[in-house]
């Protein structure tokens, strides 16, 4: 990390629909954030707090109602395929193309010369451990392998910034643990700037250099927690005291916000002591 700013978010607010509209929602309010080059920043918060909105605004997929985002000093006005690559939650691979065709098509869209594509595709598939599955269709792969393939497609674009929107969100706990470890190893070898949206406290603690905790809707960044641990992170980091302390701190920050969200949506009304206990038990899992 050089301390140089890769992404600068300046007073960004975003609302869906017009004020007074039945479906008017303020998704994000007055959010500012600097992300350093080479940093991995996790966004974490209750459902609907605007963390995905912020990611889409950074990537130029949404224009914020007010405020600006700069990437390497340039204002973001739309997708910037040469600077920013995305990994989405799931099913963002083209189902009619094989893994290798998916990777090549991404490079075609980005404008990579044909001669370079083969080597780059091979490199990125090797990096995610999928070189033996290049000729498979997405439907022939497990959920975890599909997300590896999506990651390979993003890596082949060789952008400085990677935006990941709950990339392991649809996977089971064990698969996402392994993918998290692999990702940490992979990313320690590059100097990519990464913004990673997740629901999982453990995933955020394990992967991030910093974790930005969002408040309930209308969301903004409530606090930023540093995770001072070098990459690649070892599996035994998970069992360390430092990990537990940071994870508990995130849990404490999030707990009130999640309650607020639940109360608003009416889900938290029938609240009992046993539910409270279950929540504590859930919270202690990775």
């Amino acid at each position, binding site marked *: 990390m050089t301390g140089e700013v890769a992404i600068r978010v300046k007073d960004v607010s975003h609302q869906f629909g017009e004020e007074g509209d039945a479906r008017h929602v303020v998704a994000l309010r007055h959010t500012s954030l600097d992300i350093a080059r080479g940093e991995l920043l996790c966004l974490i918060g209750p459902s609907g707090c605007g963390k995905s909105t912020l990611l889409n605004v950074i990537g130029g997929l949404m224009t914020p109602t007010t405020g600006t985002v700069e990437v390497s000093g340039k204002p973001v006005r739309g997708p910037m395929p040469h600077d920013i*690559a*995305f990994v989405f939650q799931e099913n963002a691979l083209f189902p*009619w193309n094989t893994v290798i065709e998916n990777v090549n098509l991404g490079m*075609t*869209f980005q*404008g990579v010369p044909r001669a370079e594509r083969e080597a780059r595709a091979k490199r990125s598939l090797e990096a995610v451990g999928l070189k033996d599955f290049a000729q498979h269709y997405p439907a022939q792969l497990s959920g975890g392998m599909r997300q590896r393939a999506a990651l390979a497609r993003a890596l082949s674009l060789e952008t400085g910034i990677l935006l990941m929107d709950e990339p392991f969100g649809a996977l089971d706990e064990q698969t996402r643990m392994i993918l998290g470890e692999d990702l940490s190893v992979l990313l320690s070898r590059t100097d990519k700037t990464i913004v990673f949206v997740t629901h999982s406290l453990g995933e955020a603690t394990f992967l991030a250099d910093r974790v930005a905790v969002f408040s309930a809707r209308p969301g903004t960044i409530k606090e930023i927690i540093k995770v001072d641990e070098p990459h690649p992170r070892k599996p035994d980091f998970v069992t360390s005291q430092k990990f537990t302390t940071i994870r508990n701190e995130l849990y404490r920050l999030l707990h009130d916000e999640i309650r607020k969200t639940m109360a608003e949506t009416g889900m938290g009304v029938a609240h009992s002591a046993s539910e409270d206990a279950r929540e504590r038990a859930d919270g202690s899992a990775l």
Partner: protein
Amino acid sequence: MKASDRKTEKPLASRAVQVTFLVALVVLWYLATTRWRVSPLLLPNPVLVWDNFWDIIRTGEFLSDLRVTLTELAIAFAISSTSGVIVGYLISRTQYRIRVFEPLFSAIYSVPIILFLPLYVLFFGLGPASKIALGATISFFPIALSTIAGFGYVDKVLVTAARSMGASDYQLFRYVLMPAALPIILTGMRMGFTVALLSIIGSETIASLAGLGHRIVHLAEGMEMARMFAYIVFVVFIAATLNMLVSALETRGKRHG
């Protein structure tokens, strides 16, 4: 039993039942005309029908009527698939248009459009033009509807992903929208083809100057029942062949899409 045995046996067994059913039907037909003395004016002897069938094939007598019917079908289908795909694509471009036109087209599709045949005959005459117009109208709706479904409901995340990687409008169409929509459009075109064939032959039997449907009615009016039945067999054969051909093209198109 191994799983592979079951797989090969099942289609064979059901094929055997299908063949037995058809053979039984012909046997019943034969018995009805010989033993049970059904009037040959209502049901001719199948052997006589078979002779007539070979006569039609051998002399090539069917050619002029077949040419008329197939030309009508080809022109009607060309009109409906071109206009159906273009109109369907234009509608699919905004959610508003889909909301307006999709229910409208579905409603019209469920109306028996053949009711408008007298009107079409008044407009376009007794000749091929009225059959072409009717066939094109009827087959337009399934094709347009499937094109709307194909292009209108492409998974948003695929479009977003392509855009985020820098896809141009043309690339988005060529590499994302087209392959997503093609299988659904091909299904609609096969359905459109089938209803065009049905409505064209059907309308030829109602009001026409030539064509296979016209020939069948003409023979019925002349009480030439065996020859009429032979023509019906011929039309069934042609229709089955055409549908098989179109289904094969559909499968092929989906594989290469």
